[in-house]
């Protein structure tokens, strides 16, 4: 079977791959690049735990073919922190206790990142609408929404 040449950026690093046409982005990230932050939940695009940013848009990587991505930019949860310093959203999820088992967390944070990138100060309603794309089966969404809300507010003196 043929292989498709795909040149894309993953977390800022250019990479050129040759993939089977039926390989999903999630398989490429996890099995080929060892970026196991994005999780496979349902594998059907319903739960959102495999969410990554694809050209800035929160996207379920389990239902995207890597072959589709020539020229694309992908950011995964691994691409958020700067070395040892966590991203504001990651820090906020920790501080607010928005993580229980943690399986949905990478997807939640990438969806939230997508929202904050296009809207600096989203309303609570906008946060709820965005984050309801992702399933959390441990608990309610209260602390998750609070964490996103807190991350959206610019730190004092920084405004």
């Amino acid at each position, binding site marked *: 079977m043929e292989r498709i040449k795909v040149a894309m950026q993953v977390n800022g690093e250019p990479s050129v791959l040759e993939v089977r046409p039926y390989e999903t982005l999630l398989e490429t990230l996890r099995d080929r690049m060892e970026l196991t932050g994005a999780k496979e939940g349902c594998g059907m695009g319903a739960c959102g735990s495999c969410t990554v940013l694809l050209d800035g848009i929160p996207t379920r990587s389990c239902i995207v073919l890597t*072959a589709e991505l020539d020229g694309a930019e992908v950011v995964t949860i691994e691409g958020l922190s700067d070395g040892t310093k966590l991203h504001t959203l990651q820090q906020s999820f920790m501080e607010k206790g928005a993580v229980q088992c943690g399986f949905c967390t990478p997807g939640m944070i990438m969806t939230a990142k997508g929202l904050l990138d296009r809207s600096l100060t989203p309303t609570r309603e906008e946060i709820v609408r965005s984050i309801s794309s992702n399933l959390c089966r441990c608990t309610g969404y209260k602390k998750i929404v609070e964490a996103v809300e807190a991350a959206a507010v610019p730190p004092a003196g920084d405004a």
Partner: protein
Amino acid sequence: MISSKFYYRSPSDVQEAISLYQEFQGKAVYLSGGTDLIPRLKLGLQRPRAVIDLKRIRTLAEIDDKGEWVRIGALVRIFNLSQNELVAGFFPALKASLQATSCEALQMRGTIGGNLLQDTRCLFYNQSEFWRKSKGFCLKMGGESCNAVPGANVCFANYCSDNATALCTLAALIELAGPDGTRRLPLEDLYGGKAEKPFTSHEGEVLTAILIPKKKSHGGYEKLRLRGSIDYPLLALAFSVVDGTGKLAVGAVGARPYVAGVTQPFHETIEEALDAILRQLRLAANAVLDPAYRKRMIPVLARRLVKKVLGEER
């Protein structure tokens, strides 16, 4: 994991896409957002020889104000369309159905064309191959009879496009490009009424655009579902009033949206329209809510919807 092996092609114009389809002797599928197709490939519901990705065809992703028409490219993303000013200003029923489609993240991936051409759904069909084999293949899988209504020789799968329901109240046309040229037809004529193979489009045709008469409308959309955050509709109801005349459409109740005209006074004639639609429906126990309940909810949601729309008019 996708177990079927296929070739991948990404043509840069529609003609090339059609040629590729012919090259693979019809054993190809067109891919847009993939939110409906890729899960079906994963379940082995479809085993194409080639996937022809339309996303490099930029002209398919444009929205144009054509004066008398609004022309919506089939590859416009559902989220982008829901944010469009023409849609908000002229087609409130469509705006509401776009916003009610799935969840925000899937709206950003899924396209309006793909949403219209999504396959019909059934609890006995959208399952893994292992699950389906254990039950024996149904009509839609090429078997002898229906699994939802044992013994029946018709398919009861539901066509669950939120947006088709709304577009049917707005006299929308669709544009198809195929081996024999380009044609336009009313969206309602896309449906042949057979749930196992719901569309009348010809082999190799690409849905290129949706055209809506650019007339101010009042309208709305009501959706029955279990989870407000995601879910296909268990009932879809749309109502639009253009130039004083109304149209009611009911979706997710069989192979196609059911449409009826409504004249003034709306709160009276809506009952006749509902009767006409309800008489045609044969719902099966193939969705997560009981068919009798779904049927009873149709008039409830329709009256609620008309009230809401007329309230806005005052």
